[in-house]
Structure formats: structure tokens, C-alpha cells
């Protein structure tokens, strides 16, 4: 009797496994926090759908998407022409912006993207080189596994093929950046747009980049230079009724926007 029960149980489980549809998504590690929470909530009401998200980076994710290993890829950069030509279709799901903050004794209110790259690669070391007073620049960087570090690298240093200076204070959290920038004369740091208030409260100030002040508005219209869009990408337009299509729709829905916001990004209007 017991044996029969177990046999029956095994059969039921086996059938359930066979019936489950498995999907592999992947790509940008920046998109991962959004994707992971969205997948969890999205599949909660769909016991037969299993989705995993592999954080392999935007480039690798898009490559695997066109090869068919993934059916949906997250990307934290715009698609290249070759990728668009290969039939990949991006849908913007969120905006991300970095804010550059400085100690209150710094007299500079605006930096160009080139000057910022110079400061973070170590070629500009004094504030008087960018129109400020004669004071050493104390660079505050993030730990290299953080998404904020990766975003700054992609937006500021990578286009000029520069590498971060190692002569920088390394802070583990946005809050630690805030504390160290606010307390160290001549300090410069960067945080996600959502953390600016924390910095200004601690006595620091946010810089304009290329004459544009960071805000939700300048981020959404794309004029702020340190902003970027996050995408979910499919090979060919996502088919109506497919899991990929309904997942993207879920991320763009009111509930998805809450997830985006909680992950520290700006939901699209």
C-alpha cells in the first residue's frame, strides 16, 4: 500500500515536472535585481511556469539571445546596429542615472563628462584644473562588484577606453559614499539618483554634468549625460500570448514600476 502511494506520488510529481514550462532569461547584472523580483512575483500565480535569470552581462546575454540559448535578455546599454540588424528588439523598461556629488568646500558646480573621466582615471588630480580652487581631489569610488560601479564605468570611462584610478577611497554602500564625501574636504563621489537626498542632507552637493542638473525629468528625456535606459530584449518582436510578452508587460505595469523603483531605478512614465 505504502509502495503504491509512493509510486503514485512519483508519477504525479513527474507529470507536474513534464507539464512545467521552463524559460531561461539572462543578461545584464544591472537588470538582474529587477528581473529576479519580477520573475518571483510573475510566476507566483503560474505554477507551471519556471523562469531563471542568468546574470552574464549585457553583451554575453544579447549574444546568447541571438544564438537562441536565452529567450529574453536584459540589457543595460543601447543595442548596437549589428544587434538590431540581427533582429533583436529592445523594449525600454527603466531609466538609471548617476549623480556626481562633492564635498561642500568644492567651488565647482559643473563638470563635463571628459573632466569627470579625467578625474576618475587619475589624470586630473587638482580642483584648479577644472576651474576650482587649489585643492587635491579626493576620489571616492565604489566596490567593483556593485552595479553603480559598473554603470559609472560604462557611461564615463569605457567610451574613452580609460580605467579607474586605484588611488581612490573605496566605499561599500551609497550611504558610505555619502558619509565620506560629506566629511572629506575636496572629495568627489557618485551615487544612484535615488540617494542624492542622503548626500545633500549630509552637507554635500550634486554637480551638473555638461550643464544639465540631474533629476528624474532630465533623466527621462535623456538630456542628462549620465543617464541610460535599461532594456528587455527579444529576438523578433515578442509574440502576443507568449510568456516573454506577458513578462515584459508585467514589468511595464503598475506593479512592475514599483519593483523598478524599489530596485533603485526610475520607472518609465
Amino acid at each position, binding site marked *: 500500500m505504502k509502495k503504491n502511494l509512493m509510486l503514485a506520488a512519483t508519477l504525479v510529481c513527474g507529470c507536474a515536472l513534464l507539464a512545467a514550462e521552463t524559460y531561461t532569461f539572462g543578461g545584464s547584472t544591472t537588470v538582474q535585481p529587477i528581473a529576479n523580483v519580477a520573475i518571483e512575483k510573475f510566476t507566483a500565480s503560474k505554477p507551471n511556469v519556471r523562469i531563471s535569470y542568468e*546574470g552574464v552581462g549585457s553583451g554575453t546575454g544579447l549574444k546568447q539571445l541571438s544564438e537562441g540559448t536565452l529567450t529574453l535578455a536584459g540589457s543595460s546599454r543601447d543595442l548596437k546596429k549589428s544587434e538590431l540588424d540581427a533582429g533583436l528588439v529592445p523594449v525600454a523598461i527603466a531609466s538609471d542615472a548617476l549623480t556626481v556629488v562633492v564635498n561642500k568646500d568644492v567651488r565647482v558646480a559643473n563638470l563635463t563628462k571628459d573632466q569627470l573621466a579625467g578625474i576618475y582615471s587619475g589624470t586630473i588630480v587638482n580642483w584648479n584644473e577644472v576651474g576650482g580652487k587649489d585643492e*587635491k581631489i*579626493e576620489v571616492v569610488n565604489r*566596490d*567593483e*562588484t*556593485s552595479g553603480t*560601479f*559598473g554603470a559609472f564605468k560604462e557611461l564615463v570611462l569605457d567610451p574613452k577606453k580609460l*580605467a579607474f584610478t*586605484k*588611488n*581612490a*577611497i*573605496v*566605499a*561599500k554602500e551609497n550611504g558610505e559614499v555619502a*558619509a*565620506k564625501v560629506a*566629511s*572629506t*574636504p*575636496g*572629495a568627489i563621489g557618485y551615487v544612484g539618483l535615488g540617494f542624492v537626498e542622503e548626500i545633500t542632507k549630509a552637507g554635500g552637493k550634486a554637480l551638473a554634468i555638461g550643464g544639465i542638473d540631474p533629476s528624474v525629468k532630465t533623466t527621462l528625456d535623456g538630456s542628462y549625460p549620465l543617464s541610460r535606459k535599461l532594456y528587455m530584449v527579444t529576438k523578433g518582436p515578442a509574440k502576443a500570448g507568449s510568456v516573454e510578452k506577458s513578462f515584459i508587460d508585467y514589468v511595464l505595469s503598475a506593479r512592475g514600476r514599483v519593483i523598478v523603483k524599489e530596485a533603485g531605478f526610475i520607472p518609465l512614465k
Partner: protein
Amino acid sequence: MEAGLERTFLACALVSIASVALMTVFIFRQGLPLFAKVSLPDFLLSIDWFPSRDPNPGYGILSFIVGSVFVTVMSLAISVPVGISTGIFLAEMAGRRFGPFLRAAVELLAGIPSVIYGLFGIAVIVPLVRMIPGGNGYSALSSSIVLAIMVLPTIINMTEVSVRSVPNELREGSLALGATRWQTISGVLVPAARSGIVTGVVLGMGRALGETMAVLLVGGNAPIMPAGPLSMVRTLTMNVITDMAYAEGTHLTALFATAIVLFVFILALNVFIQVALKRAVKESTR
């Protein structure tokens, strides 16, 4: 009843042995695979730490080994003279009134959580270092000062206890021979108590080497070779904790391998203590 108790106690004793064994196995299992990808010299003797660089990531931890040793030695340079003097003062000179007060203060110092030391470092030590010797304040020197305060209680307590346990005949004999108080302390008491004092210093060294949170907040954490006391520093412990949250793959393995290096350092220190203690016991029974 007796036998049952004995077994219970034995079981409890085995828990700590099992914990040590499990920890050792775990750290080595997680860290050793690194050496399939990175050679041992490239790991221990290179200063190029940049695991997220793509391609050609760098996994050299020499700067952090040097950083750990540098900060520990500097902190001992501060804490050993102060700690030993305080310990001798407590054992020999502090009166009935002041002694207990000082002792309570030292014990309080020992009980303060390390993150508080770190915050104190950011608020007081870092600005002081920035103002007086210069630099940005986040430095090996700031870390050493914070660590020195943290290891003081260990050195003070060990010194006091071992000076106190020097037999009274030695003390009285020295004074009876006409030695001054200073001569008695430097010529009789300290030499007689030396193994205990050394043990205290080595224990303090272990604490300084293993401390994470306090140095993380004041050391600057730049992955560079420290060029001097005012240079920023990253120690082995800081390196493990900085990237632990999100690291994956070879990067994560490299963090565990860093922990192995730290583990070996601490193990060597402990073996040294054991040997020193054994020698001390031999000396005192002779």
C-alpha cells in the same frame, strides 16, 4: 548521573572541535580551486588586484598582505609601550582608589563593539590625522591608531596579571638588596613576567590582524600598496568583506583564498602562543 554528565560535557567540547574542523575544510574547499586558474606566485606576489577587469582580471593580493602586516606592526608600536606601562602601573603602583577605577575603564574598552571604534575613527581620528600630519585622513596611520586602542585591554590585562603573579619574595628580595622601585620593575618583575607579557602582545597582534569593521571605516580601502603611514590601505580582512556581497565565480574564490591566507597567519600566531606558553610553564617550574 555522573557518566551522563561526563558525556554531555564531552559532547559540548566536541562542538568546538567540529566547528574549527568544519570551518577549515569549508574555507579551503571554497578557496583552493582558485589555484587552478591563478598561479600561487601571481596570487601572493602580485600587486595587481582587479577581478572585474574584462579581459585579464588581476588577482594579486601582495598589497593587502603588506597592508595587514604594516597596520598591525604600527598599531603594536603604539599599543605595546602604552599597554605594558599601564599594566605595570595597575599591578604595582595604582592605589586602592584609582586602581579599580582604571581597571573598570580598561574593561569597558574591551567590551566596545568594533563598529563603534570605526565610527569614532571616522569622527575623531581621521580628521585629526588629516589636520596634523596631512593627507586625506583615511590612512594606515588612522587604522593603526584605532587598532592600538582596541588591543590595549588585551596587553594591559595580560601584563597586569603576569606582573601580579611574580612571587612576592622576588619583589621583596630585590628591594631588600637596595634596588630602587624602578630597578625592581625593570630588572626583576618584567623579566620574570615576560612570557605572560609576550603572550598578551601576540594575542593583541591576532586581534589587530583579524579586525575588519573598524579598519574598513578608516583605512580608505584603496587596493594599492601602502607607500607610508599616510597612504590609504586595504588589509586582507577588508579585501574579503568589500566585494563579498556580489562577487561570483573566480572573484568569489579569490576572496576565499584571501581568507585562507589570513587563516594561515592567525594559525601561525596561535602556534607561536602555544609554544611560548609551554616555554613559560617550563621556566616557572624550574
